[in-house]
């Protein structure tokens, strides 16, 4: 067979790792760089896309790429420790090898959004697929009207990408709103659930695109509240996740209704999504 085999991953080296959160299901971020220079230069992902990452002898897992292509010739993955593969991934340290294939799926149509105000609404590890959009907008600041980020988690310890928020609030036209479920000492931001915070901020639907990602229950209420705020279905985007094995629309399992999340998704506009019966199952 040939080098065309889409199931064969590229080797990449872990350059840097850090923990975003703690606990049993902690999230660890990996910054990886492909070993092969050609791969490095030819790799081209868009915000919202995923990659199959894994370890030979253990397996693979579909993870969203949590960096924007504008950030440099590297990839970032923020992985929650859950099953066999993610546990093994968590054992990787700088210098170790990770296998990567992709990028998979569609992406946020960021280039169709030029001139718009972007609103991201994220919860927990759901911020990972949103982060590339944030970074992309930051890198192409002149092309967008502005960006508002709402991000919440159960506790301050469960927030990912913590170091990046301060700097963001300082930039013009960008704003960052953080919330946690329960009051904590020293927490200088909002307390409450993400959907409520959305209502409280009362963003205008005009010329705005909303993208949201987080736990299913959060998404449900965010969608509900977005409707209350007057957003049209076409203005709302989210990403889905399902169990995947191949990443290229063959293995069958990731379908939500007639859509393969790995190919037709993971990004869906609510206009499409609302007709997919299994989307929120």
């Amino acid at each position, binding site marked *: *067979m040939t080098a065309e085999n889409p199931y064969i991953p590229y080797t990449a080296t872990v350059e840097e790792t850090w923990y975003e959160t703690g606990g049993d299901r902690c999230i660890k971020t990996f910054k990886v760089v492909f070993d092969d220079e050609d791969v490095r230069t030819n790799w081209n992902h868009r915000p919202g896309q995923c990659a199959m990452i894994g370890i030979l*002898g253990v397996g693979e897992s579909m993870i969203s790429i949590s960096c924007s292509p504008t950030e440099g010739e590297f990839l970032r993955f923020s992985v929650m420790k859950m099953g066999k593969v993610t546990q093994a991934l968590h054992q990787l340290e700088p210098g170790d090898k990770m296998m990567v294939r992709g990028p998979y799926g569609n992406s946020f149509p960021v280039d169709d959004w030029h001139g718009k105000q972007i609103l991201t609404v994220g919860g927990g590890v759901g911020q990972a697929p949103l982060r590339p959009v944030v970074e992309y907008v930051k890198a192409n600041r002149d092309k967008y009207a502005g960006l508002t980020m709402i991000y919440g988690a159960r506790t301050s310890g469960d927030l990912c990408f913590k170091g990046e928020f301060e700097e963001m609030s300082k930039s013009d036209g960008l704003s960052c709103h953080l919330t946690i479920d329960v009051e904590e000492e020293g927490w200088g931001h909002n307390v409450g659930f993400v959907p409520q915070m959305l209502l409280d901020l009362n963003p205008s639907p005009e010329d705005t695109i909303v993208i949201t990602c987080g736990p299913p229950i959060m998404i449900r209420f965010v969608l509900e509240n977005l409707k209350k705020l007057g957003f049209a279905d076409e203005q709302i985007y989210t990403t889905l996740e399902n169990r995947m094995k191949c990443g290229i629309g*063959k293995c069958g399992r990731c379908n939500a209704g007639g859509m393969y999340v790995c190919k037709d998704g993971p990004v869906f506009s609510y206009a499409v999504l609302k007709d997919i019966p299994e989307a929120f199952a």
Partner: protein
Amino acid sequence: MSAMLLNKEKWPEFIGKLTGKNLWAPKLEGEAMRFAPVAEDEVPELTDGNTRIPPKNIVFPQTETMYRFQLGDFEMKEPELKEEMILLGIRPCDARAMVIVDKLFSWDVDDPYYLKRRELVTLVGLACSEPGLNCFCTSLGGGPASTEGLDLLMVDLGDSYLLETITPKGEALVSEVSELLIEADTEKIKMKKKMVSESEGKIKRSVDHKGIPEGLPGLWEDPLWKSVSASCLGCGTCTYLCPTCHCFDIQDETEGFEARRCRMWDSCMFEEYTLHTSGHNPRPTRRERTRNRINHKYNYYVDKFDVIACVGCGRCINLCPVNIDIVEILRQVKEAL
């Protein structure tokens, strides 16, 4: 396309010419038939009925090594697929199923393993003169002598086989055995037509799928899904024996430092199939899984590839341990529309 005739007296000779070429044919093992390699001096007899396990495993093995590697090393060695093979006696429905599955495996990104095997196999079909009890291929655009997907079709005319070449691969095969063949005359062609129409008449079951692909979304919450799936055991019989089911799992296996990544059939009827690591399952019960199976075949696949992913071979009906009958389900679906 040409039509040739092979006198059955020359059958052993015909086989003899093919056995060196990795010939596979149906073989009775116990009570069930399945495709097996034909040994050197073996002369397979083609009998009525279809194999219990569809020949999809020829192009999509139940377990297939994708690549091997050494633990701690990053060199991945793919298996070399280069041996051509001949599948003799495949039924038209199963060949048609391959055409249907081809669409998926070549959709957007090519699946190298499947497509390579497809390329290497020559499908020599055998028209059905005695369709099975639960055959309903005619409802789905197939038929006892449908040629879709075949390279060569054989029709049993009693004392001889009519050989119709369909593709260049088929022609190539025929040319290798040409000295055993004679040109078929019009009478034989007529005999074939008669046999086929008689055979069609023997097919008792049917599905009226008109309106089903479009109608299924509207039946999403219909109580019928609960009732048709109530007795389902959640086993993989229906899907594993289905010639169009193509789902697979990918696993890494290690033995010492030796390891491989391989894929193996999986079934949407298994609970584990869609189970997230978090414990959440988007299709938590057999109701959702049965609904997905029917929708996948009669709705999603149609949406994507414009063809129903069912060829009416009847295997899932024959072997369901609890008599869940797809024809019956589709009848109820139709009724509910």
